């Protein structure tokens, strides 16, 4: 399974569409404080089905939509698409290229699409599970939380992750 590209539109500070094409090895992201780097990591967690507001640093579902800025009006929708390639059917679908899309509107309604066709969160969650999505993102400042766990919590964490 390979990650090929990420497109973000109206998600958090990305009012205008941006597209990242991924290297097969290491892709680095740099920039000043508050420029939007962690928002890109949030976009990946979000399109993979993240439902927790705290993980998105927001309270309501629509808080991830561009809220406006000086001379720039708020938008009505946020959309993120992640495109993957697989050699077999590791993702449980018969396509070489699999694209996941998530949208949210001001009324809080979420839409999920797989290869452009409407899908349910359950279908996305299945693909996310094949990617072991909950271990994919190490959030800023959280790398050493595993050290503060009690031994019993660490057992659960490792049993899940290993």
């Amino acid at each position, binding site marked *: *399974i*390979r*990650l090929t590209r990420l497109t973000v539109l109206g998600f*958090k*500070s*990305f*009012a*205008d569409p*941006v597209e*990242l*094409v*991924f*290297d*097969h*090895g*290491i*892709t*680095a*992201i*740099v*920039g*000043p404080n*508050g*420029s*939007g*780097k*962690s*928002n*890109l*990591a949030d976009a*990946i967690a979000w399109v993979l089905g993240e439902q927790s507001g705290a993980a998105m640093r927001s309270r309501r579902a629509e808080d991830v939509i*561009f809220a*406006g*800025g*000086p*001379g*720039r009006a708020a938008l009505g929708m946020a959309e993120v698409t992640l495109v993957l390639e697989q050699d077999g059917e590791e993702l449980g679908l018969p396509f070489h290229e699999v694209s996941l899309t998530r949208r949210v509107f001001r009324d809080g309604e979420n839409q999920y699409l797989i290869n452009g066709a409407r899908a349910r969160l359950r279908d996305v969650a299945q693909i996310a599970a094949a*990617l*072991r999505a909950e*271990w*994919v*993102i*190490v*959030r*800023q400042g959280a*790398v*050493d*939380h*595993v*050290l503060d766990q*009690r*031994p*019993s*919590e*660490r*057992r659960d964490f*490792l*049993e899940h*992750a*290993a």
Partner: protein
Amino acid sequence: IERRFARSLRTLDRAFAATFSELFGGGRARLIARDGTGSIEGVELVVQPAGKRVRSVQQLSGGERALTAVALRFALLESSPLPFCVLDEVDAALDEANVLRFRAVLERLAERTQFLVITHNRATIEAAGTLYGVTMGEDGVSRVVSLRLAEYASE
């Protein structure tokens, strides 16, 4: 289930010990199962950076904590690889020598796992094949440009 977890914990313990010593340039680390009645109740983490006595995790320095946690994450990637992984400034607390060792292990793991790495460290950036710069405009809108490594002046 217990037997399976015990087996994967032994694999992870060996990977953790190896990755820890690679990242710290020496020293030892263990994941030790604490047994309950017939099952593993908890897992202790015991570390000993090179040149030091065995420490409880609580006594480690800020950088040693971050490096120990990265060693565990990397050990998990060794024992059960992921297709891709996003690391958001995990190298922020590391000094120059530790960043170089971090980069070396990252480059090795990148043969099986794709990485998206958010970082301020030049040494880590140099390990990347593709580099993106993110900027914030006066209008509160983020933009992304593709950078060539040579263009990247030190932050």
